[in-house]
Structure formats: structure tokens, C-alpha cells
């Protein structure tokens, strides 16, 4: 095997019956196969097969929505890692934080990553919203997708806020105490809503468990639902919309 070549191995794999049964098109060196790469793939098929070249420019969207999406992906992965060591109870939750920091290999890394990705997601969503506003990319037919985006922003804030309580340290406890007291001020619904959210009159074990369920199950599900709608509609409304486009009136030909 002195003349062993990696490309030969690649060809061997690509020509095997098993590989051909999974990836049903050839190498993407023709436009037909490049099209098949996109629309035969569940995860890529939200893309059109061809895109306008100007959408590739960095300043078209600054990738802000994409960055927010990647942050949420990182959050889901690192969040699942953290769940393996976390008990939503008092004072075990705080001990688990200490365990992550001082005992678990890479525990501090995943916790940090989760924390900073959360900040990035909130910040990215805010910047993305401003970008869309100043580019006037909410214009018809995209009005409703803007509304979906506002819902996503609120869900993002709620996700971040419910996660804030989970370490059960002073920062978490008082941040949530103050925040839920704000909710209490809402007329009529404020007090019962706070009681339901906290499962009591004070921030206690019940509140921690409820915030945990909201943070790990309910809100991520809602986020994924609306995120799917959001991305689907981008495609249906004609792709990503960059800066306002000039009228083509100068290019009119009789």
C-alpha cells in the first residue's frame, strides 16, 4: 500500500452501496448535483437552490439573525450537558453549581459557555431587530414575520430570566425577587400571575422547580416552534431582505 491515497479511500467510500443509499446524488461538481445537495437534504432545504448574489454580502444582514440562531443552538447543547448534573432543589442547586465549578471535568467551561451564549443570544436578537428595522425589512409581505420576531425576542428574554434563578445564589434570588415583584404591580392579573409563577408567595423551592420546568422544557419548545415559523416564512416571503433596494426605473426599457 505504498501508493495509498486519501482520495482513493474517499472514492471507495463514496462509491459504496451504503453511502449511495444515503446520499443519492453524485459529487457536487455540476449545477444539477449542487441543487440536489440543497433540496434533497432535510436541513438544507429551507434554502432555495440559487440565491441572489448580493445576499452574500456581509452588510446585507450582518448575519445577526444567524448568529442569534447559532447562540441558541449552543445554548441547547450546553444546557443539556448542564442538566446531567443539576437538581432543581434547595440548596442542592447551589451545591451542583459548586460541583460543576470544582469537581466536574470541563464543568466550569460548559457553564461559562452557556452563560455567555445566553448574553449573546439576547444581544444578537436585539441587534437583529434593529437591523431589520433600519433596513425596512418588515415591509409587506414580511409584516407578520416581524411580529413572530417580537414574540421570539420576548421568549428569549423569558428564557434568560428563568435561567437566571437556577444557580440559586444571591444574584439569582434577588434578581428574581425584584422582577416578580414588578409583575405583582400589574393590575388585576399581577398578583395571581406571580402566585402561579412562583408556586407560592415567596421565591422558594416551588419557584425554583417551576422556573426549571419553564427554562428547560416549556420555553425552549415555544422558541423552537416560533423559530421554525420565523425561518420558514423568511423563505416563503422571498428570502433574506437586506437594505432597501433602489427602484429599477432607470433600467426600464420600452
Amino acid at each position, binding site marked *: 500500500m505504498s501508493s495509498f491515497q486519501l482520495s482513493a479511500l474517499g472514492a471507495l467510500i463514496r462509491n459504496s452501496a451504503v453511502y449511495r443509499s444515503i446520499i443519492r446524488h453524485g459529487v457536487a461538481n455540476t449545477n444539477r448535483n449542487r441543487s440536489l445537495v440543497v433540496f434533497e437534504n432535510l436541513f438544507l432545504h429551507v434554502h432555495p437552490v440559487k440565491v441572489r448574489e448580493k445576499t452574500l454580502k456581509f452588510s446585507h444582514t450582518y448575519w445577526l439573525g444567524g448568529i442569534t440562531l447559532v447562540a441558541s443552538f449552543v445554548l441547547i447543547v450546553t444546557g443539556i450537558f448542564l442538566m446531567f448534573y443539576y437538581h432543581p432543589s434547595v440548596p442542592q442547586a447551589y451545591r451542583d453549581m459548586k460541583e460543576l465549578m470544582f469537581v466536574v471535568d470541563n464543568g466550569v467551561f460548559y457553564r461559562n459557555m452557556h452563560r455567555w451564549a445566553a448574553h449573546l443570544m439576547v444581544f444578537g436578537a436585539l441587534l437583529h431587530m434593529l437591523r431589520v428595522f433600519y433596513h425596512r425589512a418588515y415591509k409587506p409581505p414580511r409584516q407578520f414575520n416581524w411580529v413572530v420576531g417580537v414574540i421570539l425576542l420576548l421568549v428569549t428574554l423569558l428564557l434568560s430570566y428563568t435561567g437566571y434563578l437556577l444557580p440559586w445564589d444571591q444574584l439569582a434570588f434577588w434578581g428574581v*425577587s*425584584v422582577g416578580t415583584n414588578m409583575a405583582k404591580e400589574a393590575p388585576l392579573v399581577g398578583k395571581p400571575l406571580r402566585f402561579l409563577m412562583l408556586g407560592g408567595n415567596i421565591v422558594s423551592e416551588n419557584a425554583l422547580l417551576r422556573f426549571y420546568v419553564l427554562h428547560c422544557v416549556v420555553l425552549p419548545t415555544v422558541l423552537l416552534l416560533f423559530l421554525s415559523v420565523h425561518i420558514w416564512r423568511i423563505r416563503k416571503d422571498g428570502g433574506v431582505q437586506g437594505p432597501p433596494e433602489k427602484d429599477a426605473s432607470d433600467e426600464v426599457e420600452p
Partner: protein
Amino acid sequence: MLDETADSLPELTPGEETRRQFLTKVGLGACVMTGLGAALTVADYLEPKVLFEPPTSFRAGNVADFPEGTVRFNQEQKVYIVGGAAGVFAMSAVCTHLGCITRPVSGEGGIACPCHGSKFDLEGNVTHGPAPHPLPWLEVKADAAGNLTVDTSVVIPHGKALKV
């Protein structure tokens, strides 16, 4: 909805409806009722029926411990017990603004909240800052020997101090 084409419809006087329209309404109504019932059941389920929160009444020493001008801060119960001019009274230490725990200010003889800068005097009245109401007074009872019991769940009007 399932509307028949116009030509097969019998002539309807205003207020009448076809059997299909009526049954559609009945079906939709049943769906709405089911949904409402489910929502109410879930809401009821989510409301805790027993709370394991600390008891609301506690013993607070003897009347004799509170001559005029003493302020004692019971941190565990979040209550100030004050020997005032008119007698002993108890006052919640929970800031009326957003629920932070206030503290006595050393030297100035007032009470301050660390969160948003509210300040109160020793009667609980707001002297500065965002707090919307004075600190509520709480019920104090004394037995024959002068032992005090404070109930933090009962709010009494300002000025009703326990005369001894």
C-alpha cells in the same frame, strides 16, 4: 366551513338556519367548552394548595424590652419591633417598592432600602425615593405577663401601637 352551494339550499327566512349550520355551531361550541374546561383544570392544577412557607406569627420578647426609642430588627421574620412614644408596634421590613429587605441606617435613625434607594422614618413613612406606600404595621398582641406575639399576616392601620 362546509357551505352547500346556493342552489341546493331551501329558502330560509331570516333567523332560520340549515341543519348543517346548526350542527356546525354545536360542534364548535363543544370544542370551545372542552378547551375552556381543560384550561381551567390545568390552571387549578398549577395552583399550589399547601404551602410550606414559614409560620406567620412569632414571639418577640417582652414589653419591658422595648422602652421608648428602641428599634429591634428581627431579620429572620423581616420585622422591626419599635418602642414608640405611644407604645410598642411591629412593622414589616419588606420594602413596599419591590420587596427587598430594608435595613436600619446607623446614625441617622431611619430605615433604608438597598435596592432602589427608598428611605423611611421610624414610623415607616416614606421620606425619600420610589417606595409607593409606607411600611405596613403588623399586629402585636401581649399576654398577661407582657410577652409579645407578632403576626406578620395581619396588617393594622398606622398609629395603632400597643399601649402598655
